[in-house]
Structures are given as C-alpha cells and as structure tokens.
C-alpha cells in the first residue's frame, strides 16, 4: 500500500510503519519560538525541570511580531528572549531580520524535516516538503527539553492542481478559493497535500503562500512534494545539500481528493471577519479602502513586491488610501531594493516598514481606525486582528491590493 507525504515523513522519523490515525513519537529537527509566544514557552521550559536544551535539534528565537518593540512590556519580553538565546546557544534572529516563517524557509527547512514552531503559521515550511506545524507553549517547551513530541498521523486531502494561473490570478487567489471550498474547520486535524501537473510551474514563493494558509482550513500541515524547484530554491540559499526527493506513491490513500483547474480561477477575496467568507473580487468592486497592507508570511516575498511594483510603478496611490509595505525578510528587502521595486513603491506613495510581521496582528505599525476598512495580503481577518475590533479586514493577493491602492476601492487587478 502506498503512503501519503504525511505518512512517509512520520514513518521515516519515528522509524515505524505508520498510517493515518496512529499516534507516534518523533524527533524534531527545528523548534522555534517568536516574541509573542516565546516568553511563556521559556517559562514553561524552566518549570519543566530540564535545565538544558535537547541536543538533537536546532533551536531558534525570532523577534518579529513586535519589531522594533512598540512598548516597555514587549521590550522586556525581547530582553528575556535574547538572554535565553545567549544562555542556551539558540540561534537569535534580531528585530529587522524578518518573519520567522520566511526565515525558516530561507535558512532551515528541508524536505522530510519535522519542524515545530510556537506559531500557527509554521505550516508555511510545508512548501519545502517539511512536516511543519504550529503548537502551543507547553508542547514547544517539552520539545526544547526532550527534542521530540507526539503526533497523530493525519489523514490527508489531496489537492490536485491542473492548468496554469490566468493573468491577474495568483497563488493567494487559489488558496483563498480552497479555503472557501473546504471551510475554516473542513480539514481540522488533517494534512493538505498538494499535487498535480500545475506544480511543475509553481514557484517556491507561490508554494509558501499556499502552505502558509493551510492552517486556515484547520489543517495540521500543508505539504508539497519536493522537486527541481525545491532543489533550485535550496541551492540559491546555499543549502543545496539539504535536498531530498520526497513524493507520494500512486497508491496512497486520501480521505478526499479536491481537483482545481487553475485556468478557471479568478481573483478572490475574504470578507470580514472570517477567512472562509470567500468571494470573487469582481463581485466586491467599489468597496472603499482606507488602508492597504502588503506583506506578512503569506505575501511579503520578492515576487509579491515585484507584482505590487509592476502595478504601482509610475502611478500614485489614491489620496485617501494609505499604502503600507513590509518585506518578509532582510534578504527580501535587499533584493527588492536592488531590483528597483522599493524605489518604485516609495514613489507611488507607499510607507516601507521594517522586515517583520508589521501590521498583521494588531500590535503596531498600522492599526486601522474605527469604521475603517483595510485590504491586507495577510492570512487572517478575524474581528480585532489588526488591533481594532471596530475595523474591517479584507484579504486578497498583492495584485488586488496594489490595484485597490491605486483606486482607493476594491479593484480587480485585471482592470488596471
């Protein structure tokens, strides 16, 4: 009998022949915390009675959610995490390095790895074929101590992708469409596994966008097989040695198969206050937007900034619409400067924020006002998510965001 990607990785790592539904203990290759979940995790680690980190793994600390810190409390949390990193020899990614999930993709994730982060969007690294999932502070504290954790081997949904993206339609539109189809709890405790002929033309940046939002269906992981595109990405990051082929067997058993023809997709939008309230942008044209935010672990990569820049270059944002842009990492920022994207975006009236989570989760750098509407390229639009429960958040692709910034209202990117 064949195995899904999830069954393959967890079998290999637990050195047993496991199937969906089994409970396994498996070693963790990379464990990490960020600045809003880290302090509780570290305190729990200290309470666990284990003074030292397990040696079998890599440990990383990312200062990205409040970067630079906007308050005394958060500055003290940062100081606490820096001290922990120093004492334990964990890798510390300082303020300005970028978002944890982008940095995990750039520096750590390999096909077949198990990665656990104290952050729900840890699933992002599934783009590289890593079994990457988010857990809470207690679970992560125990991984720090033991270097391993328990997993329930998930049943898998195969997302079979055919065709190619039409003009103006991107990976974000695909994953929003899928979330609309599956629902916010339709894949709870499952694995989404992506496959099909469309993968051969799907860039790593697009895969990261898709894997990132797998958790918005309730899924535990969003997994891509590894291929030449994975190998090329790793080689470009100086980590070509980490490449391993990872693919499913033809006879793998899936709980569901969802087939999507990319040719039939159009630009999509999540309506406030739920990620699975998904409609076509063409049905929402004309909704007034006060703030556009392009960035986050979902859509803050070089390709995303290239798309935004191509739409905004030589033009100006709408006078009544603020445009905030946060590159996902220092590497992305440096490359976007070199390519001229940042210059073009600044000329169009954009505010460039430091690499990090920025306005995504309501701590700083762009909290919308009462009654204001924000169009964001992030992954969540829950009430209050951006720091104000009286604001509304729509989610869309960088192309839709850039087009909407030009007109000051929700705009189909195929029209500009």
């Amino acid at each position, binding site marked *: 009998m064949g195995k899904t990607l999830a069954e393959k990785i967890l079998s290999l790592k637990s050195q047993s022949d496991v199937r969906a*539904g089994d409970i396994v203990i498996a070693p963790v290759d990379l464990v990490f915390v960020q600045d*809003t*979940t880290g302090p509780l995790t570290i305190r729990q680690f200290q309470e666990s009675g284990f003074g030292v980190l397990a040696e079998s793994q890599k440990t990383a600390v990312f200062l990205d959610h409040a970067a630079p810190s906007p308050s005394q409390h958060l500055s003290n949390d940062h100081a606490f995490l820096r001290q922990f990193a120093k004492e334990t020899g964990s890798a510390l990614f300082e303020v300005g390095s970028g978002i944890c999930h982008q940095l995990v993709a750039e520096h750590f994730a390999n096909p077949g790895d198990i990665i656990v982060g*104290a952050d*729900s969007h840890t699933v992002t690294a599934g783009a590289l074929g890593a079994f990457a999932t988010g857990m809470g502070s207690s679970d992560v504290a125990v991984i720090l101590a*033991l270097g391993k954790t328990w997993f329930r081997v998930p049943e898998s949904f195969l997302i079979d992708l055919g065709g190619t993206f039409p003009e103006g339609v991107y990976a974000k539109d695909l994953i929003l469409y899928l979330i609309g189809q599956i629902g916010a709890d339709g894949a709870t405790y499952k694995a989404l596994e992506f496959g099909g002929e469309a993968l051969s033309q799907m860039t790593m940046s697009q895969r990261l966008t898709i894997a990132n939002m797998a958790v918005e269906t309730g899924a535990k992981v969003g997994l891509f097989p590894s291929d030449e595109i994975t190998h090329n990405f790793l080689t470009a990051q100086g980590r070509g040695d980490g490449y391993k082929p990872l693919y499913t067997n033809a006879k793998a058993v899936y709980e569901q198969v969802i087939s999507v023809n990319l040719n039939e997709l159009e630009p999509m939008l999540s309506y406030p206050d739920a990620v699975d309230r998904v409609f076509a942008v063409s049905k929402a044209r004309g909704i007034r937007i006060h703030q556009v935010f392009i960035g986050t672990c979902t859509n803050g990569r070089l390709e995303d900034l290239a798309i935004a820049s191509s739409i905004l270059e030589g033009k100006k944002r709408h006078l009544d619409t603020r445009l905030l842009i946060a590159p996902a990492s220092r590497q992305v920022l440096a490359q976007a400067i070199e390519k001229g994207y940042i210059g073009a975006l600044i000329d169009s009236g954009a505010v460039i924020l430091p690499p990090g989570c920025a306005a995504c989760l*309501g701590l700083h750098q762009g909290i919308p006002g009462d009654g204001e509407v924000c169009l964001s390229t992030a992954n969540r639009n829950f009430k*209050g998510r951006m720091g104000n429960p009286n604001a509304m958040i729509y989610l869309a692709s960088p192309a839709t965001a850039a087009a909407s910034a030009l007109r000051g209202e929700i705009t189909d990117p195929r029209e500009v």
Partner: protein
Amino acid sequence: MRAKQSNLKGKAIKLGNNISTDDIIPGRFAHLRSNLPELAKHILEDVAPSFCARVEPGDFLVAGRNFGLGSSREHAPLVIKMSGISAVLAKSVARIFFRNAINQGMPVLLCDTDKIADGDELEINLSDGLITNLTSRPLPNKVGSGEGLLSSGARLRSSKTPSFMLAILEEGGLIPYIRKHKDFIIRCSSEPY
C-alpha cells in the same frame, strides 16, 4: 485543578461558532502576555463583554463549531482556566487549541452543544464523558406548546478523549506531566480519535 478529582458541576456560559483565539484574547493585548492576571481581565472582551462578570468558579464554557481557531497562543486556554472555567464543551475545536487546553490541564469535551442552553446547570463525569443537565425548562422549539419540558437529568455523551491525553490531564497538564515522568510514557498506537 486535577481533572480526575471528582465530577465537575457548574453553569453553562454559551458562545457561538468560530470563536477565534483573537476573540478569546485579542492580539492588541500581547504586551500583557508576561502579566497574566492583567491579560486575563480582557478575556472575550470584544465578543462576550459580560463573560468576566458572569463567570463563577467551576462554570463551563459551551461553544459551537471550531472553537479556538487561529493563533497558537496558549494564553487563550490559560486565561479561560484562570477565569474559573473548569471545562470547555464544543461541537468541535481547532487542533492547536485542543492540545493547548489539555496541556493546561483543562478538559475539552466534544458533544452536541445545541442541547445545552445558556445558564443550564451541568454535571460532568470526566472518566466516562457523560454530561448531565440538571436544569428543568421548556425545550427551545416547544415553547408555548405546553409540552417538551427538558426534565432534570437529561444526559449527553461526549466523544472519547485519547487515553494518553487523559493521562496528561490527570497530572494537571503537560509541564507537570513531564516534570514527573521525565519523558512521554506512551507508546506508538492506533488509538481512534
């Protein structure tokens, strides 16, 4: 709270579907995450402003579908526990929240929560997952018809919690469990979930 001690008793405080971790403890209070008593004052403040005033020690938080979706912040089950809630009942819960709640020593029971009304007095036996409604009242869809009174003692069964998760609950959470056992004392298994 040690989950195994006895039957739990309290009133139901009902919430709707898709209560996210941002609803439970909004991200804008992240600066208070190292000051838990202060953070806990903001529990559910945007979606259920009366929660803090109503909740009494031992009460149950009774939700609909997909409770606790969103962020991995364990502060969510932590502030629920700090408020005095002794167990969460829901039709379904998000994966990370489920692990986090158990890891905090707070039982999560999956059941048809439509059968429970806000304010109902409940008794829960954790060892068999049986929920007994101690309230007598007209059934919601039979109001005015003079029949269909829910008699005290109506029972509701919840789905089974995997035994190794019960073991974590019995120790009061994952950290006390690990402090005691120094390791996971479970073996690979094919337990239905």
